[in-house]
């Protein structure tokens, strides 16, 4: 038996739990929204949301925060997915946030729009009056997330206070909120990266081509392999090289690193993930800025 096909019970268990959480979010809140990044976790989320309400349709819209620095593949994939499943898409543009003067673009060679998208996200949530945003974050991604709740309470400013979270017992989720507060809901909390890949394989989900090994023009910066893009400028002693790479997460082109890989199918990705020695987010330049980087961004409302 290969790792890819060793699926069965644990995936059923995780799927069932995730569906339960999605339904709880839908039932307990007035105006939910599902966050979409274009990555594998969020497309898994869309699949689960479809399952949760079948034979009905997904009863809430999908929200994508477009940094303007996305891979073109991501946008194509997103639009196809929405059309195929007749989903209602809302796009928040970081560009608009910058133009309105609500945020300033980071300067310098390491500039990233990761922090900026928090402002856009919160603006869009407020504009539409969403009271819960469902996301595909997992507890295994990063140390700061190990204590995250399924229903994560945010204050008026979208801030996460690690000390002020409600205890979650059994499968009882408390989503009672005051006007103006909102929640994040994380149905994939108990999944690992390998679980997600195995599930994608089991369910035969279409994934963006970026996740599979492909030839691409890359350059190396601080040990991270970054793609050539209109938003990155080479520094001294850096040079472009052609490589077979795949991405393990999909974010901004400015800061999403790739790994060298020959895995051109989901099955082979799974084999690689199962044996890999590099934690997933380590290919993202923004996490390496500080050891507690994720925690800082979480407090500010980043996913």
């Amino acid at each position, binding site marked *: 038996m290969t790792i890819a096909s060793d699926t069965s019970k644990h995936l059923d268990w995780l799927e069932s739990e995730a569906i*339960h959480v999605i339904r709880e979010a839908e039932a307990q809140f007035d105006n939910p929204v599902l966050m979409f990044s274009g990555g594998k976790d969020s497309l898994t989320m869309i699949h689960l949301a479809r*399952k949760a309400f079948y*034979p009905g349709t997904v009863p809430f819209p999908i929200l994508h925060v477009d940094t303007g620095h996305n891979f073109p593949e991501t946008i194509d994939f997103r639009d196809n997915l929405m059309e195929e499943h007749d989903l209602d898409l809302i796009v928040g543009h970081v560009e608009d946030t910058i133009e309105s003067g609500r945020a300033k673009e980071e300067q310098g060679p390491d500039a990233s729009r990761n922090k900026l998208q928090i402002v856009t996200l919160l603006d869009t949530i407020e504009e539409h009056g969403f009271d819960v945003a469902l996301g595909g974050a997992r507890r295994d991604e990063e140390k700061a997330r190990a*204590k995250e709740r399924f229903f994560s309470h945010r204050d008026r400013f979208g801030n996460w206070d690690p000390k002020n979270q*409600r*205890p979650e017992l*059994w499968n009882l989720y408390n989503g009672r909120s005051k006007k103006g507060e909102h929640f994040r809901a994380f149905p994939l909390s108990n999944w690992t990266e390998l679980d997600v890949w195995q599930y994608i394989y089991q369910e035969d989900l279409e994934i963006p081509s970026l996740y599979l090994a492909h030839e691409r023009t890359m350059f190396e910066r601080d040990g991270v392999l970054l793609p050539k893009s209109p938003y990155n400028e080479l520094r001294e002693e850096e040079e472009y090289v052609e490589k077979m790479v795949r991405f393990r997460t999909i974010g901004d082109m400015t800061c999403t690193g790739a790994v060298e890989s020959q895995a051109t199918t989901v099955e082979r990705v799974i084999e690689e993930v199962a044996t890999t*020695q590099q934690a997933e987010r*380590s290919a993202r330049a923004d996490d390496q800025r500080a050891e507690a980087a994720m925690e800082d961004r979480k407090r500010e409302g980043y996913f």
Partner: protein
Amino acid sequence: MDVLRFTTAGSVDDGKSTLIGRLFYDTQQIFENKLEEIRRNTQRDDDEIELGLLTDGLRAEREQGITIDVAYRYFSTPDRKFIIADTPGHEQYTRNMVTGASTAEVAVELIDARNGVLEQTRRHAFIASLLQIPYMIVAVNKMDLVGYSEDRFREIVDQFHEFSDDLDIKDITFVPISALKGDNVVHESDNMPWYKGSTLLHRLENVRPEATRNQVDFRFPVQTVIRPHQDFRGFAGQVASGKIRPGEEIVELPSKRTSHVESITTLDGEMEEAGPGDSVVLSLTDEIDVSRGSMIVRSRNRPEMVRQIDADLCWMNEEKMRKDRPYVIQHTTRRTQAYVSKVVYRTNVNTFHREEADTFALNDIGRVELETADPLFIDPYKINRSTGNFILIDPDTNETVAAGMIRGVAEDVAPFGAEETVTDEERESSPNVVWEGLNVPRENREEKNDHKAAVVWLTGLSGAGKSTIAKEVEQRLFDRDHQTMMLDGDNVRHGLCGDLGFTPRDRKENIRRVGEVARLFFEQGNITLCTFISPYQEDRDRIRELLPDGRFFEVHVDCPLEVCKERDTKGLYEKAETGEIANFTGVSAPYEEPEDPEVVVRTDEHDVETNVAEIIDALEEAGIV
């Protein structure tokens, strides 16, 4: 691959973080970059790396040097995915331990071999017992620091048993380990040849969590209604316990309306059966009003529908419990208001002693009675972890302030301590009901007797002929060398139920007691014949539920009321008609005919001989005798 959830609890120094780090390290779950980070931060004099750093979390906690919340961690071996709820062990974090324990199927209890059993060991074990974690593994850690001494290990095992016998923990395993050196965690130790048991990981890989889920009592709390078009109306939810198939009869609570399951729908197609944990959509054959907070159950296996609840409660909020204000209670998918009507006692989590109390503060655990605005559909937590739990929410702050484990209906209280209720583990591990502490299991008695045990329940109007038939059945069985016992309405009312009258409530209690007694005789291997008017279906069903499938024979001794009146063997109908006796079944109290009895005997049409043969035939057919 399946999933196992376990919880660990421990203080700063007992090596809990090191143990988790060791599990990860030896099963190769630590990523290279994390390992480097750990090496960077290690401040040890020896060569060992600080495995504990792997599990350390938020910055604030790092500064304080303690873990203050439940952290969830993941690792897997080829056949099992593990979810660890890692909780702090200090008394002020009791609520975190309770949270971690709520979803755990195994509790890993760490003991420092140098210190032996401490107060916190007792506290953890108490919480594991209260939250009904089915398996416990006691890992006696730091064996390297006591010279890997077998005597020391045995001493600690004895210490543990001294107090754990007072608790309700089904399955305890002891493993001597050194998390730091790696002895008996993942790999077998060469340092303790005297230990023949399995390693900690091996034990974790081999416990059977599914055996502890209640597969018997079908409970389906409705989360939301799905109505894509006029022709389909489905009820989405996760099966809390038990199983259901299309075509089976169900009842919706609170309406008590019955219908049948039309289909079990998922995106992947229709299912032939849904079991515990499955997220599905049920549709029914009839249009009944079902909404979020409804519960779909089998018509013959229902939870209690009540507004008074007797429960163990753990208070989780800085603000004390108040009896003069309502809370919101969340039970399955149902929410209503609840008052704490009574604080029965507070339990000292270190000594297990009960203390008088009139309120609970943060981390207090004790027993209370609650009154709710709307009825809830409850099962005792010991029998059903899924429908026996609830939380209380402060309606002003919306915080979750308490976690509760239901004991039962507030007026129908079971005694404290190791209880006589059947736990779902016991129900599940074998469909034959077995009590804890039964020295000789029923199966052995049955083998010796050369027949199975059963309860034959004869129900019918007074004068229908129940006793006459039962006596004859018993005599025949006795003549065949079978073990028998007969319980008769009049007899038990002299002694066991001498304090009860004939109001509906007293009748209910009478039947409840008889059921329990019948069950005792049943466990002793007897074919137990019970002759009781037992006019309510609900009461008879409850006794049915006490017994394993196929061992309860409901016999309707059917005879028209007129014939019974005519017979009036005891002169009771006459007294009832004149009002001398109140609440007399058939005259001034109702009789609910059995809905689906195993046997119906008609005493007005057939003679005793025929009736007796019908019952014995049924027992033979079922393989009892």
